[in-house]
């Protein structure tokens, strides 16, 4: 039985809380802004846009990330995972399309 999911950390020891720590000063990278914009558009938050995914299915995808990866990923890296999972689940993109695009981008970046 999975009694406690990794993300559900309330009440666990966590050390000192730094008010307004890293999040207050973090300057968002362009890709992070793009991820945020994509989430807003896909969730139909802007008037007149269609809701293609829900915040709840994205949360579920984030909660399914294995604990080690969850801890190592940044906030928006987890968002990317959740958006990709939701788009595949909904049939908006296929795993193959995502795979081919990732290879294309990696090649373009010289990787």
């Amino acid at each position, binding site marked *: 039985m999975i009694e406690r*999911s990794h993300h559900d950390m309330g009440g666990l020891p966590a050390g000192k809380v730094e008010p307004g720590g890293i999040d207050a000063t973090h300057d968002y990278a362009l890709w992070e802004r793009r991820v945020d914009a994509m989430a807003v558009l896909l969730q139909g938050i802007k008037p007149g846009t269609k809701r293609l995914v829900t915040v*709840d*299915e994205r*949360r579920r995808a984030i909660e399914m990330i294995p604990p080690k990866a969850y801890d190592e990923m940044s906030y928006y890296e987890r968002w990317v995972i959740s958006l990709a999972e939701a788009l595949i689940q*909904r049939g908006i993109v296929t795993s193959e399309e995502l795979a081919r695009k990732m290879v294309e981008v990696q090649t373009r970046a010289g990787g």
Partner: protein
Amino acid sequence: MLAAKYKPGEKVKVLKAYPLGHIRTPYYIRGCVGEIERICGAFPNPEELAQMRSGLPPLPLYRVRFRQKEVWPDYRGSDADVLEVEIFEHWLDRA
């Protein structure tokens, strides 16, 4: 919307259960007894929305007030300190 089963001031106990899926009821509050502080309205069930279903009909959502001392056995603050958590009706039983 379904009619709300509980009224402000009523004592409720949070279901002490650990199902799978996307759960909005925090781990630490399950099994605790609190008091309805207010009815927040009714919203589609997030556990259903997370599985790409409608979540309808909307479920009543309550703000439930707990005494800190009852939630955390080693709590050292004032007896008067409380903690409020928003919990959907299907996670609550009458206490």
